[in-house]
């Protein structure tokens, strides 16, 4: 059996404990059982996404209306951030 120490916000902890108790009928170890189930599902879901092949086709040309080259556009984003911070002062 492994052991994990995790830090949660009070709200999440409260909601999780309540749901775990309700699901496992206030049995001993209800929170651990619920946490095990939740983490297992999360890992399964996460690896499902990570395991699939990437497809970038749908993004091709979404900026084709912009008549600038890629390096110019990248530097423009940087200049935009810099200008925004200067104007805030």
């Amino acid at each position, binding site marked *: 059996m492994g052991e994990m120490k995790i830090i949660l916000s009070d709200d999440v902890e409260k909601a999780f404990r309540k749901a775990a108790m309700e699901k496992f009928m206030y049995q001993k170890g209800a929170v651990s059982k619920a946490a095990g189930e939740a983490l297992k599902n999360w890992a399964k879901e996460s690896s499902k996404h990570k395991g699939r092949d990437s497809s*970038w086709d*749908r993004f*091709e040309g*979404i900026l084709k209306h912009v008549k600038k080259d890629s390096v110019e556009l*990248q530097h423009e*984003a940087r200049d*935009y951030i810099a200008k925004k911070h200067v104007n805030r002062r």
Partner: protein
Amino acid sequence: MLIDANIYLEFLLKQENAEKAKSFITEISNRSEGRAFISDFNLDSILITLHRNNISTETMEDFILEVVNSRGISVYETTMQDRIEALKLMKKHSLDYEDALTLQAAISTNSEEIVSFDKHFDSVKEIKRIEP
């Protein structure tokens, strides 16, 4: 290797090298071996560009998910130490801050190459710039 933002922007813009850039990203994304990185601030540059050019937040979210779910590409989170080192690189190579931070991210990820269309990196001897 570290992938610069302009590689993604090239196929988002559908420019001259779009097909090469997209094939490269697709191939690297689907690799299970080896490691390629994009830095968090380069990802932000892309997102800012998308937002400034009226791309929906839904599409932006979709883009982030495609990046983080890429098997062969990891997002490198730049540290404060990276930023300090980048300042030294600015002086050493006469780079601007963004390019210096990209270079430092490449150094921190033990990358031997920066994949970029930005020729500013050609003056840097430590790391080789390649194009897709």
